[in-house]
């Protein structure tokens, strides 16, 4: 039975039900992938429409209300449906058990349940567009008091985010238990692949931060339905407390997005430089350090709200501290490349693009983290540029890297590497043309979330909009190329096309239902090569 690949396996249910009712972590991972690509591309289209609106001052294709709705949906979908769950739910599910030498996650049925929570939440967000007060216009942050006053479908959309939170918590719970309990014999903590370390740090944040968002969103719903007064200033509530509660979750969420992505970089770089990773211990520990310190910096989203100077100074200091473990990672990656035998295949190309984009995003983050410059730049395009560099340039680019790295293993097919590289370059160029002018626009005073602007900002906006077309072309090339690869008839059977050293490269391509016939015994570190023995 274990001869059959997970794609072909026929058990109690077949066809579509064989997927929808499957508790196989690999099938669940692929189902997440299918759903997420749809939501991601939808949100890309929303972003593209917004950029088109900014082509000329005044109304171009839409009015202010439509624009408000679009940036809200773009944010909600990208963040809750793509960036936060992206890497853990797709690649974590698919590869974590294999990388640990296990047959599945600790709680396979809960794993399937969390996929259903994800789908229900996502469909609810889409449904909120269609009925009642119409699509939400609050921004993805749902700030009170506006979110209590607007007539749009806030209650419903907020409930959708609440359901998505459940999905996230259950995935985190599953991964922590899996990592503690299911490692193959001989795989001690420091023989674990760094992707697993990234997922481990992430899972703790998912577990310990998401409930705060859950209760906050629940309170918004109750406030709208019953008028309980907890956040409504007209009844004695304090909107600032809402912001605290929201960012206590939503800042750590930023690290939910990036930590697994950073773990992925630590997989790809040793594979394509044919070298053991430099500084395994520091990289693993820096993930935990980022997760820990990242929990304590939420106040930097509130520097201009009038919170006390003492707390602002402390939050600013802590924010700067996050740069240290992040820097540790970047230096170790670069040191791994140094004197390596570098093979510039598409996954590595995406990783190098990531390092540059993420460094720009990270350094401009320091500008926003210092108190006085933040007062000038807060709520401007500078912030928009910054978080697109770290989030999209960070997690987004690495999402493509992960797809290109693990695609052959997941589907037993290969894409065209040359076209993948062209797609990557187009994406990278378009990305910078799109977002870099926003730093300048923000510095000059262009506020975020406006559908209109003063004529003097025209040139930079036009450049940025053209950038959006180039970048979307890049995404289009990447997606079509992968899709063509997926639809190819010929299968590859090479179990290790890149020369990777972690366990997923020891199982057949595509992996069989139970991953391993015999659970391996681990006798070496994850990136040690034979030459080093």
């Amino acid at each position, binding site marked *: 039975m274990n001869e059959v690949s997970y794609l072909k396996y026929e058990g109690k249910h077949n066809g579509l039900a064989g997927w929808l009712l499957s508790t196989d972590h690999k099938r669940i991972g692929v189902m997440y992938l299918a759903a997420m690509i749809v939501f991601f591309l939808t949100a890309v289209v929303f972003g593209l429409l917004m950029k088109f609106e900014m082509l000329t001052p005044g109304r171009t294709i839409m009015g202010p209300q439509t624009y408000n709705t679009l940036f809200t949906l773009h944010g909600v979908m990208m963040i809750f449906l793509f960036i936060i769950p992206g890497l853990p739910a797709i690649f974590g599910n698919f590869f974590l058990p294999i990388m640990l030498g296990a047959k599945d996650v600790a*709680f396979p049925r809960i794993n399937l349940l969390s996929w259903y929570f994800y789908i229900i939440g996502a469909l609810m967000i889409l449904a909120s567009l269609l009925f009642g007060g119409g699509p939400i216009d609050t921004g993805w942050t749902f700030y009170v008091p506006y979110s209590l006053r607007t007539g749009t479908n806030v209650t419903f959309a907020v409930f959708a985010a609440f359901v998505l939170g459940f999905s996230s918590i259950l995935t985190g719970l599953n991964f922590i238990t899996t990592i*503690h309990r299911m490692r193959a014999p001989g795989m001690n903590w420091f023989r674990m692949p760094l992707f697993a370390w990234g997922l481990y740090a992430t899972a703790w944040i998912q577990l310990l931060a998401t409930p705060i968002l859950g209760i*906050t969103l629940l309170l918004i719903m109750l406030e709208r339905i019953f008028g309980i007064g*907890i956040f409504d200033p007209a009844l*004695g509530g*304090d909107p600032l407390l809402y912001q605290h509660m929201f960012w206590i979750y939503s800042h750590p969420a930023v690290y939910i997005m990036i930590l697994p992505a950073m773990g992925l970089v630590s997989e790809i770089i040793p594979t394509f430089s044919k070298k053991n990773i430099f500084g395994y211990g520091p990289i693993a520990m820096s993930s935990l350090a980022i997760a820990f310190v990242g929990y304590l910096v939420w106040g930097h989203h509130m520097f201009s709200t009038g919170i006390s100077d003492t707390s602002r100074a402390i939050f600013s200091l802590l924010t700067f501290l996050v740069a240290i473990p992040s820097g540790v990672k970047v230096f170790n990656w670069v040191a791994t490349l140094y004197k390596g035998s570098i093979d510039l295949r598409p996954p590595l190309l995406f990783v190098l693009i990531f390092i540059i984009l993420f460094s720009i995003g990270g350094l401009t983050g320091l500008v926003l983290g210092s108190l006085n410059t933040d007062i000038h730049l807060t709520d401007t395009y500078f912030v928009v540029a910054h978080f697109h560099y770290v989030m999209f340039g960070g997690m987004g680019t690495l999402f493509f890297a992960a797809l290109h790295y693990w695609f052959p293993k997941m589907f037993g097919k290969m894409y065209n590497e040359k076209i993948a590289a062209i797609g990557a370059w187009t994406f990278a160029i378009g990305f910078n043309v799109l977002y870099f002018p926003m730093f300048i626009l923000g510095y000059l005073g262009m506020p975020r979330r406006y559908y209109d602007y003063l004529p003097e900002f025209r040139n930079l906006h036009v450049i940025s909009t053209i950038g959006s077309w180039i970048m979307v072309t890049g995404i289009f090339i990447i997606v079509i190329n992968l899709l063509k690869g997926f639809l190819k008839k010929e299968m590859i059977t090479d179990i290790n096309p890149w020369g990777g050293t972690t366990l997923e490269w020891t199982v057949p391509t595509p992996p069989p239902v139970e991953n391993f016939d*015999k659970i391996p*015994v681990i*006798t*070496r570190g994850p990136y040690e090569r034979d030459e080093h023995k």
Partner: protein
Amino acid sequence: MDNESVMENKHTEHIHRDDVGSKMGMWLFLFTELILFGGMFILYAGYRFMYADSFRVAAMRLDTVVGTVNTILLLTSSLTAVLSLAAIQKKQKLFSMYLLVFTIVCGGAFLINKYFEWSTKIHHGFYPRGPEMADLPDGEVVFYGLYYVMTGLHALHVIVGMVFLTFMLVFVYKEKITFDNSQKLENAGLYWHLVDIIWIFLFPLFYLIH
């Protein structure tokens, strides 16, 4: 991959069962519950600091006797929940079931008490957007908001816990839970203790501190 030897996996034929993992998953879930309520406790602390006087006045209107009775009910039920686990581990199936029934009944009594407490408050007009609320100072409105949300959310957890325990009762009856396979019951018990411990904090914060 060559220098990885492979070992015969002895457990292939068995159904996978990992009690430690199962307990760990339960504890992790309890952390999330604690943090869910933790968010409410943060808000309570913030508003208590902001509206110290109003909170004192509003708290005087709550019925300490009802609160005390409910505290006794929950504490007792926590004891019987853990005793039912001890009983099944000593192979006393019937006694374990009696203790579980008693635990569930205590939970039910707690809810009945809560129902009458809430309906009295609502009857007097103390509820969000209620007739009495318009004249109250902001701090008292917020106090009642927190009171309803926190005790309401807690009551919801009592209901979930009771459902959980009812399933355990059935499992003990059908001998799916036995002296050497009692992790499910322990997990349900852990959940019930969580419900209990949250109440231990809610009780003084709302009923006792004046």
